[in-house]
């Protein structure tokens, strides 16, 4: 009994300690981002690895999610004789929720895990210590470009996901099933508001981008420098950032879409 209480206490203390360290790490990272943004080539390379290489999975998933939304939405809506509202359903669910969230989850498992593994391995093979020996700050040189690369890539990926999803919904709804094309687009345009829906979706994806990339770089930087430690850190990145996305999504949705509308 007493031993398990001690273990619980130790776990909580360790968690809080790590949270504090992560916050300090985030502040330090922001203050030392000058190099990453000044020598933009470094960040460019990370946008390539985090963003460009995630394009295929994002585009294909977006297309399929949109197509499934089209099928399911049509099936439900036609019972109420309002299958023309299919465009509204597809666009709103993608722009408000599915675009940022699913793109964020995919981004966490595709790019976040890669970032953690890369930084963790650099730490395990003592490349980070070597940099410090040469008076190069590894946070400024290695971590910050990866962070900003992820933060820049994520909103673009989420927008691509949503656009691809709307196209998928159009493909299934209009081309395959035969919902009226004019009604599909005009009802969508009447219902989707640029500021309330699209801008809020973009804000969501920026927040998710910061959360996922921060977790990824922190887990990598904080990884135990062994093969086992790096694999554990990679797993933790995917689990923690997925949970963070879903929890943050709830908070942001509660702030954005309740009251007023």
């Amino acid at each position, binding site marked *: 009994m007493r031993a398990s209480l001690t273990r619980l206490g130790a776990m909580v203390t360790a968690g809080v300690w790590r949270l504090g360290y992560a916050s300090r790490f985030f502040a330090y990272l922001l203050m030392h981002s000058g190099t990453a943004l000044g020598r933009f080539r470094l960040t460019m390379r990370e946008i390539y690895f985090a963003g460009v290489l995630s*394009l295929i999975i994002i585009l294909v998933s977006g297309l399929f999610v949109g197509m499934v939304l089209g099928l399911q939405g049509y099936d439900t809506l036609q019972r109420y004789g309002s299958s023309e509202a299919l465009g509204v359903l597809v666009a709103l669910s993608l722009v408000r929720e599915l675009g940022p969230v699913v793109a964020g989850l995919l981004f966490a498992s595709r790019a976040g895990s890669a970032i953690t593994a890369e930084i963790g391995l650099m730490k395990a093979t003592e490349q980070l210590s070597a940099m410090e020996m040469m008076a190069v700050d590894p946070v400024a040189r290695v971590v910050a470009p990866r962070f900003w690369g992820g933060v820049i890539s994520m909103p673009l990926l989420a927008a*691509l996901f949503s656009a691809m999803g709307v196209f998928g919904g159009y493909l299934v709804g209009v081309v395959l099933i035969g919902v009226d094309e004019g009604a599909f687009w005009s009802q969508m*345009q009447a219902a989707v508001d640029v500021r309330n829906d*699209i801008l809020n979706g973009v804000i969501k994806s920026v927040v998710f981008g910061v959360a996922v990339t921060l977790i990824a770089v922190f887990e990598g930087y904080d990884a135990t420098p062994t093969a086992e430690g790096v694999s554990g850190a990679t797993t933790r990145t995917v689990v923690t950032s997925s949970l963070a996305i879903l929890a943050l999504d709830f908070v942001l949705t509660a702030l954005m879409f309740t009251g*007023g509308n």
Partner: protein
Amino acid sequence: MTRSTIDLWVGIFVAIGLGALLFLALKVGNLASFSTAATYRVEARFSNIGGLKVRAPVKSAGVVVGRVADIGFDSQSYEAIAVLSLDARFKFPRDTSAKILTSGLLGEQYIGMEAGADTRMLEDGGKLRLTQSAVVLENLISQFLFNKAAEGGDAQGKK
């Protein structure tokens, strides 16, 4: 992979990402349709606005001519104040009437405007004097039921 090809790919990525955002804003949303046009505001008072919401369309002859910009409450007269922001291209006479209508039986509510015959036109900050409140379905149903009950009572009285 040399640096220059990475630059190219990043450029393509950023371009199609921004393109997707533009697509969402223009084709999925309705950025182009009303936000750029100049508008003028007029005020309309209703004794009951039902389910009217901010940003609901203002239509005249079925065409959208503006949006509801703001909804307030006058605690002196206990009336609802709806501020309408109308497209500056469309001018309405001063005795134009406004009523709250519903698209379909249970659809969203909007404001319908019917032009009057006054030669002077509404200006920014003007007021719509003739208004008709929203039809509240519950009131309608209760009215119907009371009428039915009254009819039933008459029929029984005649016996």
